[in-house]
């Protein structure tokens, strides 16, 4: 006699299969994993270490060892309480904002020129982007010699043309040095803006210009109504990258003025360098590094937010 159980025999339960979307998501995560790990090791860990060091008074020999000292805010107090801190912020502001703006203006102007595709524009293109191929330290050295008040070509030309009666102390006058360094840095940076803007210009459909011309729009009107809106996305990314690059630039100032005269060109990045490598105060240098990072992130986020809002409008 066969007894039938009341319940059917248990069917082995199959694990629910992942949906196509979930599998795609998993695959994406797996593909991104190397990049995530690299970012964690190369970016997040150093930043984490920098923040950690900034809260301790450590000797050079203790930096990579387990920390047994109590944490402190002394480095931040010393960094922000230093009389050079506010002038450094001011120098940073000039160096970063004026430098980026100048690079943008020159970059946009040269991109517009190259976009005209005049005869010999390939040669001009090479000339325009050539500063980009020069190493930052070499570019700074070149400008240091060009702006020298005794042998510099710039002063020679100014004197020869009668524009000035005595040499301009570009790098030795506290009132002028920050502008000279900013200009030299903008010169090094503008080819990046040119290339980005040129790519942007070439992405704007020519038909828009033709339609505008048929409607009788002049050059200025076409530039304001078509070119600038068409470049908005490119401008946003380029200025964002330009600002970040300017914040971390240290070699231009170090080579040209060393932060002087009278600390007039001492940006926050230069102070990080000086405290860490000249004065061997890694804690104070790290605190300044964290403050620089905060200022840089806040500035670039504010810029991105402001330009996004405008785009939404």
């Amino acid at each position: 006699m066969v007894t039938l159980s009341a319940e059917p025999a248990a069917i082995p339960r199959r694990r629910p299969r992942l949906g196509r979307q979930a599998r795609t998501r998993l695959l994406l995560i797996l593909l991104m994993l190397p990049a995530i790990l690299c970012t964690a090791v190369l970016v997040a860990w150093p930043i984490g270490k920098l923040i950690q060091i900034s809260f301790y008074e450590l000797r050079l020999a203790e930096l990579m060892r387990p920390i047994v000292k109590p944490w402190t805010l002394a480095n931040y107090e010393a960094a922000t309480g230093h009389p050079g801190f506010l002038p450094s912020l001011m120098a940073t502001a000039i160096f970063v904002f004026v430098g980026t703006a100048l690079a943008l203006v020159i970059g946009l102007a040269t991109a517009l020129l190259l976009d005209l595709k005049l005869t010999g524009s390939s040669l001009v293109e090479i000339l325009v982007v050539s500063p980009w191929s020069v190493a930052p330290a070499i570019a700074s050295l070149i400008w240091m010699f060009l702006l020298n008040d005794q042998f510099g070509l710039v002063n020679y030309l100014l004197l020869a043309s009668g524009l000035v009666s005595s040499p301009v102390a570009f790098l030795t006058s506290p009132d002028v040095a920050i502008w000279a360094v900013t200009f030299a840095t903008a010169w090094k940076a503008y080819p990046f803006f040119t290339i980005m803007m040129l790519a942007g210009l070439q992405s704007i459909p020519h038909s828009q210009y033709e339609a505008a011309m048929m409607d009788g729009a002049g050059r200025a009107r076409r530039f304001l109504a078509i070119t600038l809106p068409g470049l908005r996305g490119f401008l946003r990314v380029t200025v964002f990258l330009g600002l970040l690059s300017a914040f971390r630039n240290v070699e231009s100032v170090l080579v040209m003025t060393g932060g002087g005269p009278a600390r007039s060109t001492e940006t926050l990045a230069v102070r990080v360098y000086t405290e860490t490598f000249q004065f061997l105060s890694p804690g104070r240098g790290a605190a300044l590094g964290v403050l620089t990072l905060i200022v840089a992130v806040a500035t670039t986020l504010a810029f991105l937010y402001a330009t996004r809002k405008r785009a939404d409008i």
Partner: protein
Amino acid sequence: MRRSIAALGLGLAAILPAADRAAAQTVLDFPTYQLEESFGPWWKALTEAYERENPGVRIKLTNAPSNDHHRMLTTRFAAGNPPDIVHMTARFIWGYADEGVLEPLDRWMDKTDIKRSWVPSQASLSVAGATYGLVMLNYGWGLVYNEAMLRQAGVAVPTTEPELFEAARKLTRDRDGDGRTDQFGMALNTSSSSWGFMTFMHFHNGRDRDIVQNRKLDDVAEITRTLARIQEYVKAGVTPAGLDNNPMRQLFWQGNAAMYIDGSWAPGYAERAADAVRSGWRIAPLPFPNLAGGPSNALAMPKDISAERKELVWKFIQMAASPEWQKRYAMVTGNPPGRLGSVDGEAREKWPFLALFEASASRPSRSHLPIGFENEYNRFSSIFTEGMTAMVAGRLTPEAAARQITAGLKREIKGLE
């Protein structure tokens, strides 16, 4: 196929012993900023001789520009991966010793004659009774001058500081009559680099004053006096304002300045000088009653290497300090070595001004270092040049600059009175 395998086997047999030998070799890492300078041939010869004497050891001698070199050293010390042989500008040595990354050398050095036979500044390379380096070169200074310019202006070589100022004034000229100075009497470094601070120390030590004595900073009035004197040179237009080292040397060696102060390496620049200068430059003792002295650069040993490596590094330092190699130092580089009495007649004949620098280096009457605060040298230099460059640019009077410097130093450096 068999032939190929046999050939591969033979090849491997030939290569493997060499690979074995390479694996058995100890490599000592030795970066220096002097390899491309006039000192380079001496360092190369020394390392080759060391390798010959120590067959199992190879020295990896590499060059790094001065600023990058010290940045690299700091980074490597911080990362616990220092080079085996540490060569550095002496002004960093106290800071590194203070940071606990250098090995005291006394247990080896005390068994030699180094402490008895070296320039006086060797004694300054100690922190809390421990010695952290071997002085390779002691600062020896001279007044480099253009003989033709002095003769043409009827100016005698100055022997006192007031004479120096007067000579500088007479030698400052507008040669082409365009209303602008194109020949400066004296090229003085008044930049924000550490050499700007050295200019201050030439004048301050020259007035027989140390900047720090018994942990007390010199008086504001005395600092003002020295700054005011430097300002007189700038105001009189005998030197361009804010001049850094390279432009300063360029002015002189291109024939646009009559005098400047430089160290014992100055003759090395003559090769690249303008023709008219190359044949007519001379060096005289500095016209100050007292000289700025102190170590220029030194060899040291890191703390974070094995005991075996430390022994090998010491062997290298000891070899560099031997009478034979010290003599060769003078002969090859034209600079007075750390070991006293190492300059022989042959070297003096080859380098006509060596005796002058030797005398200058062996009798410094004052130190360019803030005694007792040597580990804060870079901060001293930075705060000083901040005030001095502001003064030179006309932003501060000498007294205001001195007050700013004094306040800055006392605020930043613990224990300075």
